[in-house]
């Protein structure tokens, strides 16, 4: 009881604001309790058995799903529902094959751009009218602006919370005290984590020497790296040219599903080949030297490097393929004389998404299910597989990029992607529970999530926005179908509307904004200059604060070491005084002070303590 009152008094006196903060959090916690209901139980089970790192994949999937749900809802309500009112009847027949090819019956449905009317829809004569052209372009435009803002803020918030300080991460102290995963609630998983931690700690203490590879070994490593890079870049180039030539030759036979399938197998085959190469490199580097047991830091450094390399190669391959496809669509399909080129692109993207979905499921089947069978029966040394977080997240980002490109050409595509994400979630969850084991090595979930969000923003969303911008501003819409038929570009719908608005005095401000802010280059130029100046100022502030932090750290070290110096000196003084009282004369010896341990950084700063605290100086003067 005495401890409790003492603790309570201390808690109240020391941090009165924590109480208030606790209240606030408690309130917001209960509010959010109901918002997370979708899959809440499932996520809890996954986090409990496999830890935070695997859980981060599923949370990322759920986050992407919310983008698709939002897009589907606004597209459906603002574009599709009015279209139903002004729909033309569909004369084509439905065979089951359309689900795979996306063509045929679906061509005359609301699924594709081509079906939408360019008329101004009105239910009654002289009633309220609904301008389909403006609705289409504004819905898609506003959706992308909102996506951009959401991504920017999430990324900034994530980066702020998980600030990556690369040189100080390899701290053992933080690894010990700050990385125990409180989420893990499964008894087996907890025991496994403890075992991993104990083996890692044991290894570090026994083998602390840095591994010095000999010159030949280093050369071999460099050659292996170069070989892997050359192979993956070569495969990327081969895949892209293959995709390009297949697409060119396919222009006449548009509904050839097999060609599309082949176009997709090739990149996936290349990806798996690159991964095999990568695994062989990794095994060469860590297992090729049976006499040296690598220390934990070295293995972790190597695995981080290998992970980054794997990610880079994968990203380069995927970006180049999407780049080639976009070039093909925008340059060749759009300029071709075929009817309704937007619908053709929409069908292409539909097929790509479908094949990607099938491959995702197959990947789960082969990568996890078969691998577990092989690992437990045929070749037991391989063991049960771990869930490959990086590869799965990159697949998600690729699928989302395709969906974003396709929104302009097929407004209901996010709905299809929504269904596919649902199925992928449950498939991955079942596969994870049955086939995988919890990850053995530390996966920096917070930093990797920030990195994946950045990937979603930078190559993915920015690329999609550029593609959409080119389509809307530069390309001529097809003559016979779609809401923008007959116009010189999709954006011409907006300029025509502005011309109409000029005749109304009430909307003069809209016209003014359009002429002077949106279409004026001077405005954007000035805006960019202002942003650059603000960025530069913030950068300088950060640099100044970094220097300040360093100086303050030195001060702490100096103050603490000065106190121990003073203590040491007073002890020597005592000894001298006692010796004198007894009658011994102690020869004058210079007391050289050394730091209590050989801290390189601390002694270094001691030698050049450029800002000794005032108290230190005064006490030294007093003693000497």
């Amino acid at each position: 009881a005495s401890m409790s009152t003492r603790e309570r008094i201390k808690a109240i006196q020391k941090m009165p604001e924590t109480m208030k903060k606790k209240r606030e959090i408690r309130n917001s916690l209960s509010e959010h309790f109901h918002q997370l209901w979708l899959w809440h139980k499932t996520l809890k089970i996954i986090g409990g058995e496999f830890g935070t790192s695997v859980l981060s994949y599923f949370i990322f999937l759920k986050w992407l799903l919310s983008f698709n749900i939002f897009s589907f809802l606004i597209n459906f309500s603002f574009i599709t529902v009015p279209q139903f009112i002004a729909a033309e009847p569909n004369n084509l027949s439905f065979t089951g094959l359309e689900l795979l090819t996306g063509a045929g019956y679906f061509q005359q449905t609301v699924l594709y751009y081509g079906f939408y009317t360019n008329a101004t829809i009105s239910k009654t004569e002289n009633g309220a009218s609904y301008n389909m052209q403006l609705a289409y372009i504004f819905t898609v435009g506003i959706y992308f602006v909102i996506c951009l803002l959401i991504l920017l803020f999430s990324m900034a918030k994530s980066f702020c919370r998980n600030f990556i300080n690369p040189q100080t991460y390899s701290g053992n102290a933080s690894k010990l005290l700050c990385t125990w995963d409180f989420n893990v609630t499964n008894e087996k998983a907890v025991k496994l984590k403890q075992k991993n931690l104990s083996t890692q700690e044991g290894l570090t203490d026994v083998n602390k020497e840095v591994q010095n590879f000999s010159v030949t070994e280093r050369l071999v490593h460099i050659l292996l790296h170069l070989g892997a890079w050359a192979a993956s870049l070569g495969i990327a180039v081969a895949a892209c040219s293959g995709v390009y030539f297949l697409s060119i030759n396919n222009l006449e036979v548009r509904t050839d599903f097999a060609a599309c399938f082949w176009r997709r197998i090739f990149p996936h085959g290349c990806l798996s080949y690159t991964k095999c190469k990568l695994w062989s490199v990794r095994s060469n580097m860590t297992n090729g030297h049976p006499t040296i047991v690598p220390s934990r830091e070295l293995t972790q450094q190597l695995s981080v490097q290998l992970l980054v390399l794997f990610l880079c190669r994968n990203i380069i391959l995927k970006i180049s393929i999407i780049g080639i496809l976009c070039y093909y669509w925008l340059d060749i399909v759009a300029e071709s004389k075929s009817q309704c080129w937007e619908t053709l692109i929409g069908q292409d993207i539909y097929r790509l998404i479908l094949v990607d979905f099938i491959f995702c499921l197959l990947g789960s089947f082969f990568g996890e299910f078969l691998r577990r069978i092989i690992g437990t029966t045929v070749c037991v040394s391989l063991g049960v597989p771990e869930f490959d977080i990086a590869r799965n997240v990159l697949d998600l980002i690729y699928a989302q990029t395709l969906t974003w490109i396709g929104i302009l050409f097929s407004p209901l595509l996010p709905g299809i992607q929504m269904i596919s994400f649902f199925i992928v979630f449950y498939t991955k969850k079942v596969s994870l529970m049955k086939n995988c084991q919890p990850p053995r090595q530390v996966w920096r979930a917070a930093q990797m999530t920030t990195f994946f969000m950045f990937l979603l923003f930078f190559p993915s969303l920015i690329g999609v926005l550029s593609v959409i911008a080119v389509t809307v501003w530069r390309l001529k819409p097809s003559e016979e179908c779609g809401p923008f038929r007959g116009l010189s570009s999709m954006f011409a719908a907006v300029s025509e509307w502005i011309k109409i608005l000029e005749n109304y005095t009430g909307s003069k401000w809209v016209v003014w904004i359009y002429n002077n802010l949106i279409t004026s280059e001077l405005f954007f130029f000035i805006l960019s200059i202002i942003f650059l100046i603000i960025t530069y100022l913030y950068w300088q502030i950060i640099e100044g604060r970094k220097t300040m932090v360093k100086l303050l750290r030195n001060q702490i070290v100096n103050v603490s070491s000065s106190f121990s110096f003073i203590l040491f000196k007073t002890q020597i003084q005592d000894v001298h005084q006692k010796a004198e009282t007894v009658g011994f004369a102690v020869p004058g010896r210079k007391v050289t002070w050394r730091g209590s341990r050989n801290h390189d950084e601390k002694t270094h700063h001691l030698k050049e303590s450029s800002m000794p605290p005032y108290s230190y100086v005064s006490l030294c003067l007093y003693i000497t």
Partner: protein
Amino acid sequence: MGNKQTIFTPEQLDAYQVQNKLNGLFYRYRDLAPQLVPLDYTDKPDVTLPYELIGSMPELKDNPFRQRIAEVFSEDGDGNMTLDDFLDMFSVLSEMAPRDLKAYYAFKIYDFNNDDYICKSDLEKTVNKLTRNELTPEEVRLVCEKVIYEADLDNDGKLSLEDFQHMIIRAPDFLSTFHIRI
């Protein structure tokens, strides 16, 4: 969840500042011992659940630090928690809690002897709990020395709250790992 109606006074609701969304956590608390916890909280009943019940919750039962967690958040320091303590515990361990608050409570959890410093004996106990006593005493001692060497900025041989908070900056995962989902 049940269809029974929980009863709180308006002042209590005000203090908690939620409507019936609090019920989720309250029902979890009540489910531990339905015969002890009344549905009607208007007269502020003095109900404390013993540590054994708290420690048997599925979210906590396999956590090696469950005893320390219960001790830190309980009023009497023995692990016996009132509803208030229970709500505090899960709100600090939720995603919404700021980093400083989490660091403060994590520090208190690892401080086994409650002297406001994580000394060597505290670290040894932590390491043993984290590795299920599988390391030899020599290895445990080495690990503890390494941790103090790295994290102790003011050279007093033990970690203060400021040293601990400085260390947290290097572990951005801390916010997501020091988190229990309910």
